[in-house]
Every structure is written in structure tokens, then in C-alpha cells.
């Protein structure tokens, strides 16, 4: 899954050594990877830490809407696939936390920032999963949007992040196919199943488009992030690509995209689509999504109720290593 880009300003402090900065920018412009021990401007480090940790948090919070359906998956095969998928997401979270840690922030600090509300995660996970078709729609649309965002990140300038993205992208493309396959079964199924499928598309379509972040004219950091090769394509470019690919897929399912303004524009060679309700987006960013409280409560509870387990594991490891030293 993906994190909506929510960074604040990424201004380079004037205190940075101009020679080092120039050398850094030249390396990045030449498409070299920046590695953990290389010199980097503080603003680059901050921006990346924020982006990678948001991405990691999104993977972990993203386990909840789908976890909601594992116990109710309608067949043994679907249950196994969904378990494997959610397990992949936990894995993505782990190596993204590790990638972020190479920038000098510990996993505990990042998790604390998530639980205090200081750190953000993708707004998409603050919508509820109401029916089994939502599991299809999430795979198809949400993971589809994630892939669109993440494929360019395989060439992002920070080495550990780029390498993590190579693996993540492979698994996400499996996730998207399993989602689409669920939608195919539902759309070709009984009247009840078709109703669920259409309803899921209606609810998830617009939030999926919002996953690409604010429009370019309101995304002040895009220029800097592109210059640093943290980002490779603008929000609007990626969003358009997603719409162009996804609309025919909806057609193949026999489902209707909930946008009356949607239509093929021969001259542009793209689909035109309706205005996104950015007030909805910013509300959800502010933490006013329908199940934002439930998601954060679940994460905090898991962490707090698991404290004794982590403490016990640490205490045992400590005793064990003392015994080994004594031996």
C-alpha cells in the first residue's frame, strides 16, 4: 500500500555546506543512489524519513481494514490468499521501517509518532470495509494506485528505499490481481454480489484518486522532491495514468465508475474526469475519516496490550546473554 504524500515544506537550510550540497545535487542529477552513510542535506533526510515512515505506517494500519475480513473470507482459498496478502503488508512495513531507520530514527520513535498522531499514514485506510467486495476493491483500486505510485519509487534517489520498493512492487502486483479477481467473481455473480461490487466501487473510487495527493498546483514540495529524485512523476500525472488504466477495467467488469463527467478525450488521448472533492481529502488528512479513531485505537491497543510481551522478550534475552557471559 502507499502513503499519500503529506510532507510539509522541505526547504534547504542555508547553513548547509554549499560545496557538499552541490556535489550531492550533482550525484542525484546523475541518477546515482544515495546510501545511508553518504552526506545528505538535512532537509533531504527529513523529507525521506517522513515519507518512508508514513509509508511504513500505511502498511501497518492498512492491515486493519483487510484483517477485518480474514475471519469472514468466503472460501478456504480466499482466506489463504487474504492471509498471505496481509502478511505481505506486515513484511512491507518491516522493511520500510528498516529503510527509515538507516536515516537515523528508531522504529520505536516512529511508532510513537504514529500513536501520538504526529505522523500520518495514507488517508485511504480511514474508510471502512463493509462487505467482502471491499476486499476486492481495495486490491484492485487501492493497490492499483499504490503500484502506480511505487513503480517510479524503484528509481528514487535513496538506495534503501528504492531497493525496498523493488520487492514491494512485485508483491503489490499480485495483490492487485487478487483484488481484481475477487471483483470479477462478484461482478459475474448473483444480484447480491453485483450490488456489493458496484457499491464498493462507488465508495472506493474517489478516495483512490485522492491517494495521489493534492493537485500539482497545491503541492509545493513536488518541485524540490522531483529535483532530488525522491519523486519521479507529479501527483496529477500519476492520477491520470491510474484513471486511464482503471476505467477500461471497470468496463470489463460491467461496473459503472461513479463519475458522470468521465469520458474519453480523443484530443488529449486521456480520460477526462470530474473534480475531486479536496475538502473531503483534507478532512481525512486532519484525522476526520469515518474510521480514523477506530484505526488509531486498534494500533494503540495492540501496542499497549503487547507491552508485557515485548518486555518479557527483552528480559529473557537479557538474562540469556548474562548466562552466556557467565559461562
Amino acid at each position, binding site marked *: 500500500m502507499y502513503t499519500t504524500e503529506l510532507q510539509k515544506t522541505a526547504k534547504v537550510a542555508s547553513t548547509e555546506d554549499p560545496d557538499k550540497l552541490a556535489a550531492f545535487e550533482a550525484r542525484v542529477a546523475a541518477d546515482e543512489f544515495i546510501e545511508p552513510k553518504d552526506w545528505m542535506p538535512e532537509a533531504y533526510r527529513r523529507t525521506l524519513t517522513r515519507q518512508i515512515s508514513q509509508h511504513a505506517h500505511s502498511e*501497518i494500519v492498512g*492491515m*486493519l481494514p483487510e*484483517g477485518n475480513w*480474514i*475471519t*469472514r*473470507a*468466503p*472460501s*478456504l*482459498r*480466499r*482466506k*489463504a490468499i487474504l*492471509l*498471505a496478502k*496481509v*502478511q505481505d503488508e*506486515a*513484511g512491507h*512495513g*518491516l522493511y520500510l*521501517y528498516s529503510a527509515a531507520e538507516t536515516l537515523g530514527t528508531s522504529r520505536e520513535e516512529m511508532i510513537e509518532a504514529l500513536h501520538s498522531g504526529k505522523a500520518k499514514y495514507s488517508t485511504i485506510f480511514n474508510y471502512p470495509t463493509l462487505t*467482502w467486495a471491499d476486499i476486492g476493491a481495495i486490491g484492485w483500486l487501492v493497490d492499483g494506485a499504490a503500484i502506480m505510485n511505487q513503480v517510479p519509487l524503484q528509481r528514487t534517489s535513496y538506495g534503501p528505499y528504492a531497493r525496498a520498493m523493488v520487492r514491494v512492487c512485485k508483491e503489490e502486483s499480485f495483490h492487485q490481481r487478487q483484488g481484481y479477481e*475477487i471483483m470479477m*467473481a*462478484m461482478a459475474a*455473480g*448473483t444480484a*447480491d*454480489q453485483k450490488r456489493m461490487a458496484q457499491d464498493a466501487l462507488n465508495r472506493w473510487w474517489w478516495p483512490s484518486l485522492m491517494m495521489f495527493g493534492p493537485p500539482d498546483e497545491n503541492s509545493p514540495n513536488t518541485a524540490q522532491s522531483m529535483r532530488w529524485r525522491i519523486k519521479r512523476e507529479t501527483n496529477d500525472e500519476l492520477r491520470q495514468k491510474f484513471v486511464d488504466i482503471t476505467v477500461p477495467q471497470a468496463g470489463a467488469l460491467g461496473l459503472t465508475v461513479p463519475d458522470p463527467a468521465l469520458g474519453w478525450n480523443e484530443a488529449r488521448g486521456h480520460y477526462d474526469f470530474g473534480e475531486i472533492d479536496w475538502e473531503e481529502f483534507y478532512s481525512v488528512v486532519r484525522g476526520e475519516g469515518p474510521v480514523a479513531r477506530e484505526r488509531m485505537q*486498534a494500533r494503540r*491497543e*495492540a*501496542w499497549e*496490550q*503487547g*507491552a*508485557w*510481551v*515485548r*518486555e*518479557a*522478550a*527483552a*528480559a*529473557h534475552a537479557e*538474562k540469556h546473554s548474562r548466562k552466556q557471559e557467565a559461562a
Partner: protein
Amino acid sequence: MASLPPIDIPPATTGNGAFDAPADDPNGALFDYLLRLGDDSLVLGQRLSEWTGHAASVEVDLSLANIALDLIGQATLLLDYAGEVEGRGRDGDKLAFHRDVLDFRNCLLVEQPNGDFAQTMARQFLFSTWQRRLLRHLAGSADARIAAIAEKAVKEVTYHAELAAEWVIRLGDGTEESRRRMMDGLEWMARFVPELFEADGLTAFLAERGVAADPDSFRADYEEEVGAVLAAAGLPLLPQQRPILGGRRGHHSEHLGHLLCTMQFLPRTYPEAVW
């Protein structure tokens, strides 16, 4: 639920896989035995999947989902085979999602609630340690299909048993709180251990034919292995009490019905649908 007396049902009213499949019907006995094996994996896999997203750390979450996934895979193989043996057109899904409690054949241990992480690990440790030994025997079953499934599954379950034993030791040895919780968890689960070794006519019938394993043959090894882990964890031996039985005959705890409500909701609500 405790040690209910056997219920006599006239043979004429029982069919394959019915409440008391007659032990002199090889197919009926095999079907029932496969349900026991398959339902153990299914119900425990379902229980573990309840944890997803709520464990103490991402690593723990991953390991629980991993075990759940293995178990659901085993259940699929075993129940699909059960359906073939029965020969009434039911497959694994039909058996998993369209039976009620009286026809479930899992042991009582696997349907126990997750409780806290220590209780979950107590259940896992006691079950996987048993299941590993059972599967080792079944890998040599005269039934080639059971042997193949067991051979695949025993590798998975070896990991489950090791992971659970490590946690029992870690929690038993860790802090005062973790030790107390681990003891509570083991106390909750211990009363269901004797059922794992219950040998009835069906087991005897199939064991004689080399198809099933007689659990009594590895009971002493099991007790020794459990005892060694508890000793390493600094924990007392399992408390002894009158065994609680019934799962293999469809007489379950109150918990199973609720688990099935959740698990079976979609296929039961929309019986015509294909997912």
C-alpha cells in the same frame, strides 16, 4: 461437556460422516478421521487469524499469520480429500462452511479463545507439539494421500512447535507478569490435553489398518517433550484434572458455535453465490 457418556444411535440411522459413523465401514471411518485432522487445522487457523493486525509487534503478527496460513492450507487438503472419500459431492469449502457444530470433529483445545498472547502460545505449544508427532507417524500412513499431506505438513508444524516452545520459555522466564500470564494460559488449556490422546474405536480401527496413528504410542514422548520445555521455562508441570472430552464426537465447548458464526457467515447468507 465433561466426559459425556457415549450416545447410542442405531446403525441404520447413521450415514457416512454422521454423528457416529460406524467403525466397520472403512470409508465412513476414513471420512470421519479426515474431518478430525482437517477440522483441527481449520479451527486453529481461524482462531490465529483473529490476531492479524493486533499482535505485540510486526514480527509477532507475521509469525501468527504465517502459522494460520499453513493451517488453512492443511485444512484445505484434508477436507477436500474428506469430501472425495465421502463421495457426496462435497468439497473442502462445503465441509468448512456448511456444517454445524455437531458435525465438527476438531479437538476442544483448538477452539479455545485466543485470550492474551500467553494463552494463545499455550494452546499452540500444546497442540503443535502433539500435531508434529502425529504427522510424523502419518507420513508413513498406508493411505498414500494422507502420507503425502502429512509429509508436507510436518515441516510446517515443526516450525510452529519450535516457535511456540520458544515463546513458552521466553514468557515463562521473562518477567513476573509474563510468567503469571503463561501459567494462566497453560492452566486454561491443560484440561484439553488428554483429549488429544483419546483413542476410540475409530482410531483403533484405522490404526490397525495402518491408516491412522494411535496417539497412545507417542504419549510418553509428548509428555517428556512438554515437560522439558516447561522446565526450561521455569514453569511447573501442567495441572491434572478430569479430562474434558467430546470434540471428536461433535460435542464441543460453547466457543465453537461463535467461531462458526463468524467464519461461515457469507457462504450461509448467500448459499447460491460463488466467490
